[in-house]
């Protein structure tokens, strides 16, 4: 009870503090607030397309201007994945390495299974489109990767975890996740070899078709693919561990 009371007091105090701050914020949606007027945001809006030839500013800023952030963001996901395995995974005397029995659980009933067999490929196709088309439309590595992962999760829900694991085993998942980051960071290192700074895609100009801006555009696609790899694998790994208390045997 006292805990509740102190919690309430603390919350009220902080709340008043924050509400006090809202007083001198610029109005919501004010186009002339420093954040919107600021050189940085105007630079992004006006110059992005010249610098990178990418119409979707968010993708450009995400994958190029703040690509360093995004790399670590991918690392965060990776950490979450291997962290969950490290914490929860329970290798019952090496049971992880023995091949799973053919059909320990057959998942749900026939209709669901066949429907999902029908749907999953479409989802994956659309996910790939999202990854590839992130330059011109909403989407990109994360969204696409999550959708790819979700397709495997759907498979696991409908046809049972083993069915999904046959397509995306644990080992494979970890490898995929790691290779995703390797693609991302490796691409950045490649830029260093071509004489630029880390992640300076423009310096890859000689290797890629088109001018510097196009080099940036292409590189963004590469790193988005890397992100997609990691996200796909980790999302499924997270689900498969959490749904089985880390035993990876019988799912939901």
């Amino acid at each position: 009870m006292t805990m509740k009371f102190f919690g309430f007091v603390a919350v009220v105090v902080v709340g008043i503090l924050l509400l006090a701050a809202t007083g001198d914020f610029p109005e919501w949606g004010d186009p002339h607030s420093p954040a919107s007027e600021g050189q940085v945001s105007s630079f992004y809006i006006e110059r992005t397309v010249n610098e990178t030839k990418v119409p979707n500013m968010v993708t450009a800023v995400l994958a190029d201007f703040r690509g360093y952030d995004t790399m670590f963001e991918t690392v965060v996901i990776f950490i979450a994945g291997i962290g969950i395995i490290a914490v929860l995974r329970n290798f019952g005397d090496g049971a992880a390495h023995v091949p799973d029995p053919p059909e320990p659980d057959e998942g749900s009933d026939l209709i669901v299974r066949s429907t999902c067999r029908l749907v999953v490929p479409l989802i994956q196709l659309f996910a790939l489109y999202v990854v590839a088309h992130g330059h011109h439309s909403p989407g990109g590595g994360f969204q696409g990767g999550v959708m790819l992962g979700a397709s495997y999760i759907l498979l696991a829900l409908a046809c049972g975890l083993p069915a999904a694991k046959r397509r995306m085993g644990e080992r494979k998942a970890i490898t995929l996740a790691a290779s995703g980051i390797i693609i991302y960071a490796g691409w950045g290192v490649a830029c260093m070899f071509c004489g630029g700074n880390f992640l300076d895609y423009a310096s890859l100009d000689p290797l890629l078709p088109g001018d510097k801006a196009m080099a940036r555009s292409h590189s963004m696609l590469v790193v988005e693919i890397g992100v997609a790899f990691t996200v796909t694998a980790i999302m499924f790994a997270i689900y498969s561990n959490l749904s089985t208390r880390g035993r990876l045997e019988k799912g939901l």
Partner: protein
Amino acid sequence: MEFLAAGFIEDHIVPKFNYWIYVILMMIGLYAMITKNNLIKKLIGMAVFQTAIILFYVSIGVKEESGIPILSHGQHHAIVDEGRPSEEVITKEKFANPLPHVLMLTAIVVGVSTLGLALAITQRIYISFNTLEEDEILDQLRRGGHD
């Protein structure tokens, strides 16, 4: 009357409404994190807490009469292919500020990673204590005689 009400709302409520709501949501989440006894509830509170901050950031990026921060095909074509200088094609009032969006993409991902890890640890706790209520766990530990 409605017009008056509408006008009143538009003039006095709207400009700060998002900021108020984000504070409220944040406090809801914080209160849950501090005082809830069930671990899953704590985590839901945590998620609410984080989305509140995301709401704040996205609200920064909004501009009246602005669209999504993606060039239309025409604009893109005009600049890239016809090589017209971007300043005359793009009026920056027409585009929402992309930076907060980018930041929030990162924040969302961080949030889900934290949530996943926390859920895994919750399951660890459940496996060893067979309950999710904090007080019961502490009771078990006291009886277990840990200091």
